[in-house]
Each structure stands twice: as structure tokens, then as C-alpha cells.
């Protein structure tokens, strides 16, 4: 276990390093960021001075070296857009909103997809199964932004529930639902097909033969075994939600989270902010990947870490 964890952590560091290097190199290819910070009327001396201040006049290698040195101390430099506020502080201010959204969405996905998939698997080919499969397929074929727009249109225009932007916790419901729906579609299908396999297996037949209650067969025996493929995919959903889909949902619902911040930072060419966001997201992705493996171990004791 300990050996395993250290191995995974090592791999995680490679991932984080890879992502930050890529983003560092890529962002240095954007045109001169100084032009975005200073007004057009700024003189050439002012531009040169700022360039020197931010270190853009040095070679890329030396910039990267000092970036890595500072990153280890969690110093990512100052955001240029947010008036020289520390970039990490800015990210930390926006991060909780995204974590709320992702957590609410993923809890919804977990609570809905497992029972729905299990119910569908009880009678494969039945009316309820067909209905759920069709619904899941539509859910995972719809672009997430469109789902969000439809939900927004229905709730705010038709039912006059204005749920836009930041606000009390009720404002979280519809963005979280938008985040959850495609995941629910995919996870329901996975649960369903895993449950169909399990319910046709020998041990379920044996349990039924000796008269174990149906509820116990489905709820305890089959569900636990079906959880193995489910765990992997659920982990993937969490990663994709945190590292991508929240961007879309936040854009549709004006949710002031990390995704909104990322788009702003990209538009404004705020290098230091972009790097910080990517660094934080990469750390989260690595941690979730480790959590998936640990969850495996819990679900299936045969797995050796």
C-alpha cells in the first residue's frame, strides 16, 4: 500500500510537471502580454519596464526555472488582470464555488444513477428499461451547454424562477443538475450493463436457489460486484466535471467559479493566473486518480495495491 501510494504520487508529480510545462511553453507563444496589460497609449519605455518587472525579457528557460522554483513554494506570481493580487489567492477565492457545484452535481449523479441502473437491469428489455435507456442516451448525446440553456429557459422564463448567477444555496440546484445529467446518463448505462451481467451470474443463481430474498440479492450481492466498473467511471466523471464541464455550466449559469475565472484569464492573457489554475486543477486530478484506486480496494478486497 505504502509502496503503491508513493509510486502513484511519483506518477502524479510527472503529470503535474507535464501539464505545467506544456501550459508554460504554450502560453509563452501568445503575443506580448504586456500589450494586454498596458493601455495603447503607453510608451515604449513603459512597456519595456513592465516586461522587465514581470520577467518576460529573460530567456524562456530561465523564466521556466524561476517559475518552477517559485511553484514549489506555492508562489505563482501576481495576477495581472486582478490588479497585482496574488494569483493563488484569486484562484482560492473562486475555487470553493466550483467545488460546491461539482460536489452537488456528482452527489446527484451518484444518488440517481445507481438506483436507476439497477432498476433498469431488473427487467432488461422491459418497458421501464427501454424508457430509462432512451432517456440516458438522450442525456449523454445532448451538449451540456444546451442542456443548461434548456433548463435555464424552462425555469427562468416559463416558471419565472430566476436562478441566475451567485446567490443562496437554491441557486446551486439547476447548475448542479446540468452538470449531473450527462453523467447520470452514462453512469446509469454502466450500472445497468454491469448489473445485467451480475444478475445472470452463477453466484446470483446460487443465492436465489437457496432462497435469499430478492432485495438482498440485488441490493447487496449484485450491486457490490457491479460497483467495480462503476467506481472507475464515476472517478472519471468527477475528473471531467472538475477539469472541464464546470467551465461550460459556469458559463451558462454565470456561476462565479474557477471555470469562469479560467475563461477570463485566457481572454485577458493573464499568464500567471492561467498557470495557477492549471496547476491547482492538475493537483485535484491526481488526487482523484489516487482516490479511485483506493476506492477500488475498498469495493473489491481482491485488488492488491
Amino acid at each position, binding site marked *: 500500500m505504502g509502496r503503491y501510494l508513493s509510486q502513484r504520487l511519483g506518477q502524479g508529480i510527472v503529470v503535474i510537471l507535464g501539464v505545467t510545462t506544456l501550459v508554460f511553453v504554450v502560453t509563452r507563444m501568445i503575443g506580448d502580454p504586456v500589450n494586454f496589460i498596458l493601455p495603447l497609449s503607453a510608451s515604449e519605455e513603459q512597456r519595456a519596464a513592465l516586461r522587465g518587472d514581470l520577467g518576460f525579457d529573460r530567456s524562456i528557460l530561465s523564466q521556466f526555472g524561476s517559475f518552477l522554483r517559485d511553484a514549489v513554494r506555492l508562489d505563482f506570481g501576481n495576477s495581472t488582470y486582478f490588479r497585482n493580487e496574488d494569483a493563488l489567492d484569486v484562484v482560492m477565492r473562486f475555487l470553493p464555488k466550483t467545488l460546491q457545484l461539482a460536489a452537488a452535481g456528482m452527489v446527484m449523479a451518484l444518488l440517481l444513477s445507481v438506483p436507476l441502473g439497477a432498476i433498469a437491469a431488473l427487467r432488461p428489455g422491459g418497458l421501464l428499461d427501454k424508457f430509462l435507456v432512451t432517456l440516458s442516451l438522450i442525456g449523454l448525446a*445532448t451538449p451540456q451547454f444546451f442542456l443548461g440553456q434548456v433548463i435555464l429557459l424552462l425555469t427562468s422564463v416559463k416558471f419565472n424562477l430566476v436562478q441566475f448567477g451567485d446567490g443562496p444555496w437554491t441557486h446551486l440546484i439547476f447548475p448542479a443538475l446540468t452538470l449531473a445529467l450527462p453523467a447520470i446518463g452514462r453512469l446509469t448505462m454502466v450500472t445497468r450493463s454491469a448489473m445485467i451481467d451480475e444478475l445472470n451470474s452463477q453466484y446470483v443463481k446460487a443465492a436465489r436457489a437457496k432462497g435469499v430474498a430478492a432485495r438482498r440479492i440485488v441490493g447487496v450481492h449484485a450491486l457490490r460486484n457491479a460497483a467495480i466498473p462503476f467506481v472507475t467511471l464515476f472517478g472519471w466523471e468527477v475528473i471531467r466535471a472538475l477539469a472541464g464541464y464546470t467551465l461550460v455550466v459556469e458559463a451558462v449559469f454565470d456561476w462565479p467559479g474557477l471555470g469562469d475565472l479560467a475563461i477570463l484569464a485566457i481572454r485577458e492573457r493573464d499568464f500567471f493566473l492561467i498557470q495557477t489554475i*492549471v496547476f491547482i486543477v492538475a493537483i485535484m486530478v491526481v488526487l482523484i486518480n489516487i482516490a479511485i484506486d483506493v476506492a477500488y480496494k475498498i469495493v473489491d478486497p481482491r485488488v492488491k495495491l
Partner: protein
Amino acid sequence: MSEANPRRAGATATDEFSARQQEVDEARASEEGQEGRPYELRAATQGIFGELRADKAGLLAAIFLTIVLVGAVFAPWLAPQGPVEGNPSTASIDPIWAGGTWAHVLGTDAQGYDVLSRLMYGARTTLLIGFAVVLIAGLFGVTLGLIAGYRGGRTDRWLMRWVDVQVAFPGLLIALIMIAVLGPSKTSLIFVLSFNGWMVYARMTRGVVLAAKERPYVEAAEMVGCRPRRVMFVHILPNLTSSLVTLAVLEFARIILAEATLSFLGLGLQFPEVSLGVMANGGRDSFFSLPRLAIIPGVVITLIVLAVNFLASWLRVVFDPQEREKRFAAGATTAATTVEGAAT
């Protein structure tokens, strides 16, 4: 097949669950009887289009995709107007079902451009990006997967580590940053989406190669002195066709969604280029006053993705006899098999 009937008729149902199971078995048996012959035989006796005819969702999907494809490919000749042809005097005309005219079947947008024409040109761009990305990412991924699987050892370890690192990347975020840098154009979209999408092919190819490598025919080919390249491409690659085709089709659907998402966020293609995602982005501006401008492209994207998914499940059944039998045994609907692929 033998797995599919855990309880034969005559066994008494002891609880609610097995009673249902019995109903399913009976329904299955009667279905088999009505058809006259088992389902999986149909493809063998009537060819792949016989299978398509048996699969209603697949057939509808194929028809819909053909229409979309024709409309997209021949947009310059079929579209009533150009994608950016119009002016404020023709702005915001209602579609035909809301009292519009036949001149603008789906109405016009806030700039006065014909929505149907833009849809056709937009689908053209979107499908082109989809095909290009599947081709590039597929070629790159399959080649690397073949090399990793066939060579094994250190090459394999390093290539797969590369795949692992890239899979762990926050995809959409990196894509956005790269597009912002490369500038919003078709080429950069294709490059970025290929860069983010080749790993699936590499992983799958490597898995198949590892399994095929142990087979006697590969050994025999090596024994008679075939070069590694010949063994890889002539002897091992054909094993991949069925899974590769299905994967490519599902990836195509994913790319369409990805293009739409990037353009929706305003970082994809820019005026005067038009894609389905660009139209969805345009719909944001007048979202509450003219919601149809967001709904029409949204629905079209959804339908295309849905149809491609159905097509993938049809292809899987056509190409893979094992899958055919599994589907028959599970009594599952056509759709059930698509998702495993779509979810990864």
C-alpha cells in the same frame, strides 16, 4: 445463450424477482418463435443491411445521417443562401411554423442570416473537423499503440507513460488555452482536438496487439522471416478493424460535442466562419428574446450525436459475432451496447 435462461419454464417462481425473470424468459422464447429463426442468423443470411433493417433505431439513424451528410457536403449548391448573406432588413424573420415565409424555412437570426443555410454550412464545418480529427488522432494513436504493443519492453513503458500523463490532463482546459494561443481557426481546432484524443486509440490498439502477439500465426509470420512492420500492419492490424471502426465512430460523436463546446465558449471559430458550435454561441446573445436561435443548433447537434451512437451500435453488431450473440442473449435494446464506448 445457455447463460441467458437461468430458469427454464416449469420452475416455480419463489419470489418477485424470479417471477419477473421468468416472464422475461418467456417473452424471449416467444419472440424467438415468432421470428422463425434466431436473431443472430439474420445478419449472416441477409448481409449487413439485413441487420440494419432489423435494427429500427439504426436504420433511422442511418437515414438521418445521410440527409445531414448530403446537406452538409452539397451546402454550396443546396443552401438557399450563403452563411453570411443578409442584412438588418431581413433580421429576425420567424420560422415557417410561426408565420414565416418559405424563403426562410427556419427563419433568420438577429443579423439577418438565413438559419437553414447557416445550419448546412455549419454542419459542413463541424463534420469536416470531426472527420479530420478522427483520421489524424486515429492514425497517430493506432501507430503508437501498434509499436508499443509489438515492441514491448522499454518502448512500451515509455509510450504508455506518455499516454497516462496525457490522459490525466484536464482536457477541455488545455484545449481552451491551446486554441487561444494558436488562434481560432479550423486547423488549430483540428490540431488541438487530435492532440487531446489520440490516447484512446493507442490504448485499445496496444491491448489488441498484446493479445494477438501470442497467437501462433504471428509467431509463424515471424518464423518465416516477415519484417516487424509487415507483421504489425499485415498480420496484426486486421484484428483491430471491428473495434477500431466502432471506436472511431464514437469518437466522431465526441469530437462533434467538443467542437460545439469550444465554439460555444466563444473560443472556437470566429466570424465569418460558421459551425454548429458557432451557431450555438450566437444563440447566447439573444437567448431570452429569440431562444430558437439557441434551440435549433442545439437540437441538431443532439440528433447527430444520437444518430452516430445508434450507428456505432449497429456497426458493432455487424462486425462482431460475439457481440451479436451477447446482445441476443441479454435481450438488450440496440442502444445498450453503445454506451460502454461512449463512456470511456
